[in-house]
């Protein structure tokens, strides 16, 4: 079964076809939408299969796992793939509702699909250097999208984004080299077996620290998050939703994968470091959010604050907290993307997203307000919406682990999140002002809102059907930590050479 390749190949082919299709047209739009839907179907199919305990291992070129590059889709990967497909679909549809065929940038669809390819490859790959390649695909596509429709104001904010990530990439290549010398292999499964023998080795700790910097940049940990808050607001709305939903979570996913599956579990120093960095991230970033006065700026900082919660869960490093992290990722991707999209609708209706010049939305577009209310309260962790459950688990684990300061920090961050959401609510939705235009005459907002409504339904299902998601998250976390099991599954892949080949 070559299913694990589909989430990578489908976006790649779609990107190439759209590239040669040229100008945007209705059939081209249909093609992309159908492809995005198919990606979602494939991802859900993979999830459904992996939930039953199966792990897909696919050697590319059918080489044994140690030699070639393997794609490994376990439950966590499948969940991430489904989320990425879901958000891509939403972003694509929203983009259709927002922009007429005539105005659509011809490269947007192509680059988006390339970006998705990079993201999906990150989730699937079981090889450290291939992970680097996946990151580069993702990054260069994100640079390209960032500057694709940028004007002279926006372009300035692309520069720090590119510079920081270039530095991160250089570190990552170096880390790949170091890891190769240290472990003699690049395959995750093989590394996990060999690293277990090096547990006390000082160099392993150093490598873990370098990896924390590399992936911390991607995930957006304090103080590595600077590339994000000013660059995201310059993106087109559908793209920003995709970025907000997926890019930093790729970093979190890799941190999870590295520390739970690949590196030995005894790296308590690194875990503690992650936990405290996460604590600092969630408080400082939410303060950054409060310091902003336009919706996308507030939301951009909130991504980081929420990353803090996820990484805090990784830092606690108990089976339950890892499950909390997975749950939080699932919740956050859906909620965050929809908040950006809602911000986009508000932006279109009011003509600005500067809170001082917005208003009238609750009065005339209650549906939009309702969607915002659900997602914003979910973000703040108000029960029983989806954001509550992750926080609940984090508090439970934090108290069990006696990390009272970090629990306090997470509560503080929740309160401040609520505060900044109220700022948006009061400014954009409740303010009634005659001087603020409300362009409901432009019917495009209806389509855009419908897309958000779809995502909101998903997040409501996550919230009220927490049991199902939680079970999946727990199973995912359990399998994530099962290094031996992972290695067994992956290394059992012998490819066409059968058992005759050994390193």
């Amino acid at each position, binding site marked *: 079964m070559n299913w694990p390749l589909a989430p990578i190949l489908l976006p790649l082919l779609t990107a190439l076809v759209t590239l040669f299709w040229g100008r945007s047209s209705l059939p081209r739009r249909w093609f992309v939408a159908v492809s995005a839907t198919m990606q979602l179907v494939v991802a859900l199919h993979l999830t459904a299969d992996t939930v039953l305990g199966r792990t897909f291992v696919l050697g590319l070129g059918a080489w044994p796992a140690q030699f070639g590059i393997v794609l490994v889709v376990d439950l966590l990967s499948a969940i991430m793939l489904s989320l990425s497909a879901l958000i891509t679909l939403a972003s694509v549809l929203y983009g259709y509702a927002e922009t007429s065929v005539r105005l659509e940038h011809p490269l947007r669809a192509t680059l988006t699909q390339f970006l998705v390819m990079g993201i999906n490859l990150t989730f699937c790959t079981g090889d450290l250097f291939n992970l680097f390649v996946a990151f580069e695909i993702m990054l260069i596509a994100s640079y390209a999208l960032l500057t694709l429709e940028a004007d002279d104001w926006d372009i300035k904010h*692309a520069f720090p984004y590119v510079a920081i990530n*270039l530095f991160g990439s250089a570190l990552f290549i170096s880390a*790949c*080299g170091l890891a190769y010398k240290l472990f003699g292999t690049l395959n995750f499964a093989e590394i996990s077996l060999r690293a277990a023998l090096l547990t006390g080795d000082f160099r392993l700790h150093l490598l873990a620290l370098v990896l924390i910097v590399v992936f911390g940049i991607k995930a957006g940990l304090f103080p590595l998050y600077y590339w994000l808050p000013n660059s995201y607001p310059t993106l087109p709305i559908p793209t920003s939703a995709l970025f907000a939903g997926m890019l930093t979570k790729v970093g979190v996913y890799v941190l999870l994968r590295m520390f739970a599956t690949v590196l030995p579990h005894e790296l308590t120093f690194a875990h503690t470091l992650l936990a405290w960095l996460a604590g600092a991230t969630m408080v400082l970033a939410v303060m950054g959010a409060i310091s902003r006065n336009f919706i996308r700026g507030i939301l951009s900082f909130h991504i980081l604050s929420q990353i803090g919660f996820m990484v805090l869960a990784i830092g606690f490093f108990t089976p339950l907290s890892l499950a909390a992290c997975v749950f939080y990722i699932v919740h956050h991707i859906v909620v965050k993307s929809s908040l950006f999209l809602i911000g986009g609708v508000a932006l279109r209706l009011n003509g600005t997203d500067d809170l001082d010049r917005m208003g009238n939305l609750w009065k005339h577009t209650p549906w939009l307000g309702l969607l915002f209310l659900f997602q914003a309260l979910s973000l703040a962790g108000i029960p029983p919406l989806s954001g509550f459950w992750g926080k609940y688990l984090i508090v439970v684990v934090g108290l069990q682990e006696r990390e009272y300061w970090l629990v306090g920090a997470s509560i503080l961050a929740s309160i401040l999140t609520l505060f900044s959401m109220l700022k948006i609510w009061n400014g954009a939705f409740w303010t009634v002002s005659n001087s603020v235009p409300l362009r409901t005459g432009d019917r495009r907002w209806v389509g855009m809102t419908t897309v958000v409504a779809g995502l909101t339904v998903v997040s409501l299902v996550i919230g009220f059907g927490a049991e199902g998601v939680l079970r999946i998250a727990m199973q995912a976390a359990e399998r994530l930590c099962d290094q031996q099991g992972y290695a067994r599954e992956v290394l059992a892949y012998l490819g066409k050479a059968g058992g005759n080949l050994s390193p």
Partner: protein
Amino acid sequence: MQLETALLIGVMFTVATYLVLQRSFVKILFGFLILTNAANFVVLAMSGRPDGKVAPVVLDPQSPMVDPLPQALILTAIVIGFGVAAYLVFLLYRLFLDQKTTNAAELYDEKESG
């Protein structure tokens, strides 16, 4: 271990970092070009001491050969680095076109909104 390679890596990282932190577009660009090479050198160092070994082309299985994998990785990394460098060149050009400056300090001179 190869001491001179390690020292070279150190020098390159130092120079690259210093240049990257400068304000002039030219220097920043040069910095990143050096940085990419420096990172490649780290991987190169991982192929081990080449003394007394031959290139990884299997003609005589008995003669010792250097580790081919780091070389393959560097090849990939060089090409990727080139792509990214090209993008960076165009980005700097575009910044110059839009902002009429080649100095990053002038780029962000005015107060940021927010």
